[in-house]
């Protein structure tokens, strides 16, 4: 009996000491990696637009300078539109970074612009706020798991057609045709280029189509744009006032008709 008691006592003591040592070593190792050596970092943000999808990507690195493994590293982001509806969920997983090794992966956040804009067309012309929830979780030493959550981060939305407006509409006769010179402009505040075609339909004040004009657009990110479109109009329908219907087609989005009265 005494031997059994002694054995149990010794086992409990040794295991408790081992667990205590393990917790201390793992805690120190993780603090060393993340706080003292600062071996977790994020790279430059990159924007990419293709088809109707806008992608924001950034690399992240973990250099495991500790004495235990990182496993199941999971970076998740969720972006919500101004109404609170989720529009993008992205997850990046690194299975394992063993001690002394380095791991890196690129996290990609994809936004389906055509879907977003079909739901909220005002986002093409008005500033707004999206909200982002981010979380990073990992297991350390295969024993502890950590999850860091940052809820409700505000991400300002920069519209590609900010302040799209009709600057001037002036009629003229070029000797053969009656024309309307339509000056318009906008500011591309978005992080992607606006490349596509613009079509204008000019209606008189009786809502009869007078003429159609078109031009191609190539507005770099963050740049204002202003230009003039010459539209040949039917002189029999010409009235002092009317409305311009603007249509813009790009691989990322379709805009219009935006009706702008003049005169």
């Amino acid at each position, binding site marked *: 009996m*005494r031997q059994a008691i002694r054995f149990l006592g010794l086992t409990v003591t040794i295991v408790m000491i081992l667990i205590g040592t393990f917790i201390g070593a793992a805690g120190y190792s993780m603090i060393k990696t993340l706080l003292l050596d600062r071996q977790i970092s994020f790279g430059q943000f990159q924007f990419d637009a293709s088809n109707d999808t806008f992608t924001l990507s950034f690399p992240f690195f973990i250099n495991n300078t500790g004495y235990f493994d990182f496993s199941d590293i999971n970076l998740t982001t969720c972006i919500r539109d101004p109404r609170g509806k989720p529009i993008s969920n992205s997850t990046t997983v690194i299975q394992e970074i063993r001690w002394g090794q380095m791991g890196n992966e690129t996290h990609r956040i994809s936004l389906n612009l055509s879907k977003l804009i079909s739901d909220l067309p005002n986002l093409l012309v008005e500033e707004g706020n999206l909200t982002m929830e981010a979380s990073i979780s990992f297991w350390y030493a295969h024993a502890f798991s950590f*999850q860091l959550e*940052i809820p409700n981060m505000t991400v300002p939305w920069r519209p590609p057609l900010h302040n799209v407006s009709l600057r001037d509409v002036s009629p003229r006769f070029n000797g053969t045709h009656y024309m309307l010179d339509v000056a318009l402009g906008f500011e591309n505040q978005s992080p992607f280029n606006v490349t596509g075609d613009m079509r204008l339909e000019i209606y008189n004040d009786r809502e009869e189509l007078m003429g159609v004009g078109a031009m191609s657009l190539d507005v770099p990110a963050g740049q204002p744009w202003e230009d003039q479109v010459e539209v040949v109009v039917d002189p029999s329908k010409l009235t002092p006032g009317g409305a311009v219907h603007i249509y813009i087609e790009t691989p990322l989005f379709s805009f219009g008709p935006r009706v702008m009265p003049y005169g």
Partner: protein
Amino acid sequence: MGSDRGGRERGLLRKLLPRIIKASLWGFIMGGEALIMYFIPGVSDVFKSFLPVQETSFLSLVAVFVAFEVAIQMLAGTVYRYALSITRTLISMIFLVYLTNGGIMTLSFPMGETAIRIVFNFRTILAVFLIFSLISVVKNLLQTVNFLAEGAEKPIIIPHKDGARQKKARY
């Protein structure tokens, strides 16, 4: 008569004093260090934010621990110390699960308009702790049985009327 009584009191005091000192010392070790941590300015705020329970619950837990340790040390050499040890282990297991929210702790730090939330999950380690606490309970039970068995095997010495001779009896 009076000197007899004084001698008995001195003997009792000589017996009790080391136990009281030992009990106080162990009581301080078992609860004092937690209380010192708890009341260090700066550290206490972080310490409190970790606790998913009220401040009073933590203090009452420490008080229970100290009381148990003092009682165990005072009752050394009796069967009650084992009973108290088992009770203390079981209470500490329940409190540990309760205090650590089942091994999942949550911390929140304000950051501008939002707040960062850190969730720390150590259920595996807690499970190992609980298993070995149960083994500790088993050990205490065996110690109790062993203590009682040894007590039963000891010879009972019946003092003789005149005190000159003593009769030995074995049951």
